[in-house]
């Protein structure tokens, strides 16, 4: 493990920001710290950087316990949420700042900064001030500034939060490519699931100061281990009494269930439905066009479900009665989540 957190605790007054946080990160990986706001993800990032001090526990970077090493000596590059560019310095001076602090010679600084400016594609804008740059350009400068002193670890706090939706998409892939190319171990914080899934090699999910789950995007999406993770991704519907929907078993201690849109099949009354006997009737409350599919809100057994339907399928109208079949769902048992397949589907051995 390249970066390791062991039993970290941190409180701000009465608020417990980190509750026995432990995890490890391999060298060269791009890690997404994902969680709702107030879940303690930024605190974790700031403690690794040394911007905050944990109340107890150890932080280990490259085999060294860094608890007592000041932030400046941890060889960390940090990209702040609003970039914190030096407003009264040019792009060149911003990127060169860390190198000047390290008293590198002028020739070296000029070359290294030139290299980085080319890397981020801002050649010719060296003399601009941050106020003369677009949001995306500022982010690139912040990125280059953090990388200039050649840090062992790059930390990014909500790196895309301050950028227009349009540019964000482009920057995400840019940043991922860049970090892969440079091979620097990186951790970024985000509250946006799509962003985490798209950018990270591995996702760490935080909630209420605790780590809920660690894994690749696919793992955490497909196999949520905890109730929180199961409910966190996608447009999940909550079923308080999931046994109202047919042919799901009920493990001991099972409470409610989470259903994702892709777990649901919706058919019109006159369409064939293979599992008709296990389907329930629902009423369509809302139909919304989502570009490449239709999104349906359906009331069935008192619960409001969200489902998708292809554009080439026959149109469904608000108020229509439809058949709803649920292939699978996540059931919560205490804090754990368990995946259940619909028994009739299993018997029918269908694949989706």
């Amino acid at each position, binding site marked *: 493990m390249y970066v390791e957190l062991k039993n970290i605790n941190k409180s701000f007054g009465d608020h417990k920001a980190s509750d026995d946080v432990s995890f490890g990160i391999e060298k060269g990986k791009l890690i997404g710290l994902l969680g709702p706001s107030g879940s303690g993800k930024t605190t974790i990032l700031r403690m690794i950087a*040394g*911007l*905050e*001090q944990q109340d107890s526990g150890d932080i280990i970077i490259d085999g060294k316990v860094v608890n*007592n090493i*000041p*932030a400046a000596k941890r060889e960390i590059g940090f990209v702040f949420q609003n970039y914190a560019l030096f407003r009264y310095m040019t792009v060149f001076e911003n990127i060169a700042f860390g190198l000047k602090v390290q008293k590198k010679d002028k020739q070296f600084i000029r070359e290294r900064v030139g290299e980085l400016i080319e890397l981020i594609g801002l050649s010719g804008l060296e003399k601009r001030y941050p106020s003369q740059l677009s949001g995306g350009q500022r982010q690139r400068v912040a990125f280059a500034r953090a990388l200039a002193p050649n840090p062992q670890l790059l930390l990014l706090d909500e790196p895309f939060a301050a950028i227009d939706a349009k540019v964000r998409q482009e920057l995400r892939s840019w940043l991922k490519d860049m970090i892969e190319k440079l091979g620097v171990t990186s951790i970024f914080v985000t509250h946006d699931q799509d962003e985490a899934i798209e950018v990270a090699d591995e996702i760490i999910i935080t909630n209420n100061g605790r780590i809920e789950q660690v894994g690749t995007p696919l793992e955490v999406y497909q196999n949520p281990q905890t109730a929180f993770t199961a409910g966190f991704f996608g447009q999940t519907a909550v079923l308080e009494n999931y046994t109202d929907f047919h042919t799901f078993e009920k493990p001991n201690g099972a409470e409610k269930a989470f259903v994702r849109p892709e777990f649901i099949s919706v058919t019109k009354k006159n369409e064939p439905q293979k599992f008709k006997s296990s389907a329930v009737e629902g009423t369509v409350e809302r139909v919304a066009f989502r570009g490449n599919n239709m999104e349906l809100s359906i009331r069935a057994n008192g619960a409001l479900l969200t489902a998708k339907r292809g554009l080439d399928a026959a149109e469904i109208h608000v108020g229509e009665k439809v058949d709803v079949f649920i292939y699978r769902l996540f059931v919560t048992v205490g804090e754990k989540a368990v995946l259940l397949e619909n028994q009739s589907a299993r018997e029918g051995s269908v694949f989706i």
Partner: protein
Amino acid sequence: MKRSKRVIPGFGLSMGVTLSILGLVVVIPLASLVVFTAQMSFADIIKTITRDRILASFRVSFLTAFIASLINLVMGVILAWVLVRYKFPFKRILDGMIELPFALPTAVAGITLTSLTADTGLFGKFFGIFGVKIAYTRIGITVALVFIGIPFVVRAVQPVLEKLDASYEEAAGVLGASRSKIFFKVILPEIMPAALTGFGLAFGRCIGEYGSVVFIAGNKPFETEITPLIIMSELQEYDYPSATAIALVMLIASFVILFATNLIQARSAKILKGDS
């Protein structure tokens, strides 16, 4: 190890320098006032501050300061409105002039206002026609205090008015409210906390004002003698206990005003932060 580290350097140094200078310049002198007060008996303090001449000076000081601040409250709101909402020639100069009472030494203001309003002065002559005397009367004191207090309300209201979204009034206008109604029902309640803050600051400053008032006041006991002047004369007679007792009343008054102002200010700060 438990001690939380600060990332930005210089906390110990800057806190140390700040506290040392603050201690030497402000805290120790203030403490000596407390020490000196503690040596006086409560009965003596009461006896001193209830002397007729001193009570009269309280009346003069508080009354003139209150009236002057009231005038500045009205004029301050008008000035702020004009400076924020209208465009007209020389506006920036007008805006810059507001600060003059902060920059001009009080003694200079004092002698100038006195010479303008004395019998031989420009205004003195004019008002003399109607039999109104300004210099060496309470009117004169009020004039000097109006001068001193001008910037407070204007500078408190200006930023709030700037922040008040024009669409807010437009919305009221679309709903059919008349202009005067919009002003009194929509805008005035919004700027009132800021205006009162300015009023409080001006009032606090005016009751303690000395330089600009002594020249124009005439300093006639029971009529135009202000409290700061009484403290001054007690000091000149080396009657420190009396001076301190009267000063205490002034201090308590200004702290009460300051406290009330802070309460109001907290409200207007909320408005200012609201849509930034």
